Structure formats: C-alpha cells, structure tokens
C-alpha cells in the first residue's frame, strides 16, 4: 500500500506516519496553517521519548500546531475527534448545511434588490417625490453607453431596479474603493523630511567633501497608513443599500491591509477574514456564512458596546478612522448608543457616519439614536449614490 515509499529503516511505524498525515490534513481542513516543517517536527516529537501518554501528545501538538488563540481553543475538539474518535466530523457537516440557507439571504440582497423595495419603503414613510428622481436623470443616462457611469453616479441606489445596472453599480463601488485605496497609500511614501538627522546617510554623503558633513540629511517618522474600521449596518431598513455597500466594503478591505470590517444587525460579526477573499462572490458567500440573521432589526448601541468591549483594542490605534454605514434606525435605547459612541470616539482618530438617508429630500436626523450619536461624529455624510461615496476620498486623504 502507501507504505512502499516510506523509509523502511525508519523506527517509526508506517501506520503512525499515515495517521499523523491524516491528522495534519484534518487540521488543515479546520483552517490551521500547518506546513511541512511542522509535520517533520511532529515526527521528531513522536520519535523522542518525551511523549508517553496521549495527554502529553496533545500538549505537545498544541504548542506545535497552533498559531493563534482561535486555533488554541478549538484544538481539543480537533484532536479528540481525530485521535479519540469523538464527534468525528459531525461539527463540520452541520455548519456546512446550515450555512447554505444564510448564504442565500445575503446573496439575495446583492443580486436582486427590486422585489424588496416595497417592504423598505413601508418602513420609512417617504413615498411621493422620490420615484421621480431617476426619471429626472434618465435623459442624461439614455444618451449613450459611455455616460452610463455618469448617470449611475447620481442615482440613489434604491432606485436602481434593473439588475444589469445594479451589477454595474456594484462593480463601480468596488472599483472606487480600490482606487481610493491606491491613492491613499501612495501618499505616505513622499513624506521624507523630518526633525531628526539621518547620521548614517549624512556621513556617507560627507565622504565626497572629505569627511566634513556639509549637507545634512534628515529623517522623520514615516506617515503611517490610515487604518479604516468599517461597521456596516445590515438590518432590514438598510437592505436597499446592503448589497452595494458590501461590495464597496469588499473593495476597501480586499486591498487595504490596514482595514477591518464588521457587520451588525442585532449583533456584531467580524467579517474581515471573509472579505479578504479576492473574488467578490466568494467573499460574499463566506460573509453570509458568518452573518446569520441578516436583514432583521438593528441594535446599534448594543453592537457598538460589543465592539468597544471585545474588538476595539486589537483593531483600533491612534490613526484609525471608524466608518459607520447605517441609517441610524435603532431599536435599542438612544442613551446607550450615545454612551458607546463617546467611548469609541475617545479611542480613534475620526468617526465618519455615512447615512444613505441624507440623500433623501427633506431628511433630518431627528431619530433618537441619530441625535444621540451625532455629537460624537466627525463627518456625517450621505452615501446614497456613487458620487457621495467618491466624495469621501479627499476627506480620508487629509487625515
């Protein structure tokens, strides 16, 4: 069998090697980053005499194979499942099957926004007037294909019904996000003059003047890249916009190494790992797996409390801009929202609140939640169409 190409003179049995290989495979399936080096070391471990009992083996393998806290906490299960045959694989299957359902819901939001229109319009009592908006701009849009982007740029996302146009808008949102990202990074590299002397370079240059440092070369702290932390509201009242915003966020996070994304509705989910997937559809699929219960109510205050308590420390530093994409309709108490916003504001550099409803005629941020949050917001801006998203860039660039 497979043992043919195993070293026969090896003191470690082929059976052990095969089961070790199987274990490594099941670790990889569970998302562990395990390379050949680790496997080799595991073989060295098995050969040595420090492991006499299975408990020892577990401890040793845990130290060797784990790389982060999440690995650490689920190691027991993976180990027991493989070596002791407890609850084998059933866990994996369950999550796979249940995920399919939620996957659909988020896909629905991205693909087909038309049919959901009525329910949302019902939520927010604004009916007359807005329907005319797209037809106002229709003439310019119909001129020719080239100006379609132009037209799309001004159209409120909720008024785009044609799936093709929607796809176009999604693509543009993502492109825009990527373009913003590229320009933001380039900016850092040009800053070079600073307060301190670069002695190494100064002396090097002084050689040309016979050792006298005439020309002083300076250095300064290199500007750190701005980190973006995005909190995306995925509740029912936002469902008109969720699709395009997820694409926009995907564009930002995909390329922004300094970016983290969270999704919230009634609870908060960290979705950066899903969004790091390059392909947009796959990223959204993975995000769907993570964010169950999307499209329900909103508890912004609670979600923010959760963020402040468990997620803020690792993702926020002094050059962090927190971007909240939400309409501010909150079923929680405004007091809590205000309190949590104040706490968040202390930690980060800027809070940008993007509210798609600012683009609506006659909208005033009068809801309790919005009122409580506004004092802590540095920039309160519309986000109902592509143009408003693009307008963010100069602001971010100045930070």
């Amino acid at each position, binding site marked *: 069998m497979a043992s043919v190409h195993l070293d026969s003179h090896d003191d470690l049995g082929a059976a052990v090697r095969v089961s070790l290989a199987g274990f490594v495979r099941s670790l990889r399936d569970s998302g562990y*980053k*395990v*390379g050949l*080096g*680790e496997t080799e*070391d595991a073989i*060295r*471990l098995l050969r*040595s005499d*420090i492991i006499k009992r299975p408990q*020892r083996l577990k*401890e*040793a393998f*845990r*130290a*060797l194979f*784990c*790389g*982060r*806290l999440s*690995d*650490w906490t689920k190691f027991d299960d993976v180990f027991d499942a493989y070596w002791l045959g407890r609850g084998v694989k059933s866990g994996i299957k369950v999550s796979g099957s249940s995920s399919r359902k939620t996957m659909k819901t988020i896909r629905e939001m991205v693909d087909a926004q038309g049919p959901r229109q009525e329910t949302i319009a019902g939520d927010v009592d604004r009916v007359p007037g807005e329907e005319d908006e797209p037809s106002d701009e229709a003439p310019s849009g119909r001129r020719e294909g080239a100006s379609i982007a132009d037209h799309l740029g001004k159209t409120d996302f909720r008024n785009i019904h044609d799936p093709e146009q929607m796809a176009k808008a999604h693509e543009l949102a993502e492109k825009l996000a990527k373009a913003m990202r590229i320009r933001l990074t380039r900016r850092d590299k040009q800053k070079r003059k600073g307060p301190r002397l670069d*002695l*190494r370079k100064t*002396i090097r240059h002084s050689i040309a003047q016979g*050792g006298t*440092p005439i020309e002083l070369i300076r250095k300064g*702290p290199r500007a*750190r890249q701005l980190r973006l932390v995005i909190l995306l509201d995925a509740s029912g009242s936002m469902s008109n916009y969720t699709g395009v915003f997820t694409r926009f966020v995907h564009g930002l996070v995909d390329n922004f190494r300094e970016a983290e994304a969270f999704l919230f509705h009634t609870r908060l989910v960290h979705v950066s790992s899903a969004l790091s997937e390059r392909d947009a559809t796959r990223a959204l699929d993975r995000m769907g797996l993570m964010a169950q219960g999307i499209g329900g109510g909103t508890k912004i205050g609670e979600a923010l409390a959760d963020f402040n308590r468990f997620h803020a*420390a*690792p993702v926020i*530093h002094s050059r962090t801009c927190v971007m909240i994409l939400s309409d501010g309709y909150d079923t929680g108490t405004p007091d809590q929202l205000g309190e949590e916003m104040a706490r968040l504001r202390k930690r980060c550099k800027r809070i940008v609140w993007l509210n798609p409803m600012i683009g609506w005629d006659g909208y005033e941020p009068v809801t309790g939640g919005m009122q409580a949050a506004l004092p802590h917001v540095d920039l309160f801006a519309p986000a109902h169409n592509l143009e408003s998203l693009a307008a963010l860039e100069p602001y971010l660039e100045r930070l």
Partner: protein
Amino acid sequence: MTTQTKDTLAEALAATGYVADDGLAMALLLTEMLDRPLLLEGEAGVGKTEVAKALAKLDETDLIRLQCYEGLDRSDAIYEWNYQRQLLAIKAREGVGDDAETVEEAVFSEKYLLERPLLAAIRQDKAPVLLIDEVDRADEEFEAFLLELLSDFQVSIPELGTIEATSIPRVILTSNGTRELSDALRRRCLYHYVDYPDTSREARILLSRVEGLDTALALQIAELMGKLRKEDLTKVPGVAETIDWAAALVGLGTKNLHEQRETVFDTLVCVLKTREDQARITQEVTDRLLGKVA
C-alpha cells in the same frame, strides 16, 4: 538540560519563582528540542514576560530583552555605528596623513559598532534567552526582518560583513494582540496562550512571590480574584495586580479576608485600575464576592 522531562522542568521553574502549568512546561521543553521560538499570547499581566525571566534564571544565562514599539527599526534593534566617535576619529587622523582606505577600515571596525539587543543575543558565549517583548507593537516590516533573523541567526552589516551567531539564543516572543501577527511568524513559532491562572495555581504563585503570606490567605485571595475577574470589568486585573494586592494585605497585617472586609475594600486600588471599575465594585459588591469565598 536536554535530559529534562516536562515535570522536572516545571519543578525547576517553580524553584525560580515561576509556577507554570503543564502546557507551558511542555511548550518550553519543545523550544529546546525543536529549536523553535516560542510565541506567548495572552492578556496583559498574566506573566508572559516572567516566563523568559524564569527561563534565564533556570539556565543561569543572560536575559536579553528587546522591547518593541511602533517605529522600531534596525538601528535600535540590531546595531548602529557610533557616529560621534567615528567623526572624532576621522578628525583626529586628519593630521596623521593616513590614506582614505586605512581611515575607513579603522572607522568601520568593531570598536565603533554599537550592539543592540538582537546582535548582542547572537554574539554571546553562552546561549542567552532572548525576549522579544510585545512584538505586535513593532510594524510589519520589522516583523518580516525578525523572521529572517530567527531562521538564519546571522546579521549582515554592509561595512563589516556577515556576523554569524556564536550561540543560538532561546527565543521567547510575547504579544498582547494589539495587531494581528503575520501567519509566517506564527508558523515559525511554537505557540502558547497564557490564560489567567486557576485558583490553586494563583495561590501557589502568591506563595512563591509574597513573603509572609500563609496558605489559607493565599487561597482566599486567589479565589476572590477569580470571582472578581468574572465581574464586568473594563480592565481585568492580571497576576501582577494580585501579587501587589497580596503584598499590601500582608503589609497591613490581614490574616483572614472575612474578618477585615474594610481593609479588603480599601486595598482594592491595587487591583482596579480604572474609574469605572472602581465605581462598579462597591463595598456591597465586595461583600457579595467575599460571601462566596471559603
């Protein structure tokens, strides 16, 4: 100490004043066996740095510590030329009339080299313990460089050539999780998550660290700390805080926590480090928690 088993290692560590749990003793044993660095993660104040100190004490070797911070670069971490002395030397030799090459050779020699922790760590006669503290605070570029050093153990200085390690240090890295470390670095290292100790281990830590503390009081303090950590606190107190607190209680002559409830409450300043936490843990809460302690 290659012949050591896990249990003897744990005992030997305990003798130096560090009470390790089974997993940590195993991880330390493996660093020796597999020549891999050990990455310790955990909340602030659970004793990550102490591990390295205890290990150095155990091996009777030096502890070389590199504290990482934002903007840490090669000149602070590896080596730097002593520019002032170099400039002086150049000026001093001006009158002598040496040719340029001689001057250059003299100026770029060991004499003018300032060792920083990483270079110092690989140039010891006896392998030291190298502690790279809070590696998550350094930026990603530095992390990449660190990875290179940890696999080759050599440093190349353009003016001087490559410096090979005379001894391979035992490397301990600690991280507080303020930034996500790269997968490459994580893979290179063994990993151990240092959690808050359980009651009996914390009591043993207290006994080995605080003089004049009796076992019953140590157990009471450890148990109360365990309860306190479960409260809704902004800043969960670490082991260092427990040690401070125990020392304070001993200093004030406390024998039994139940008998001196007020002292207990008054000395909570050793443990609660934010205004919100101090407001939250009132005398009533303290009494309630004390009620659950044996």
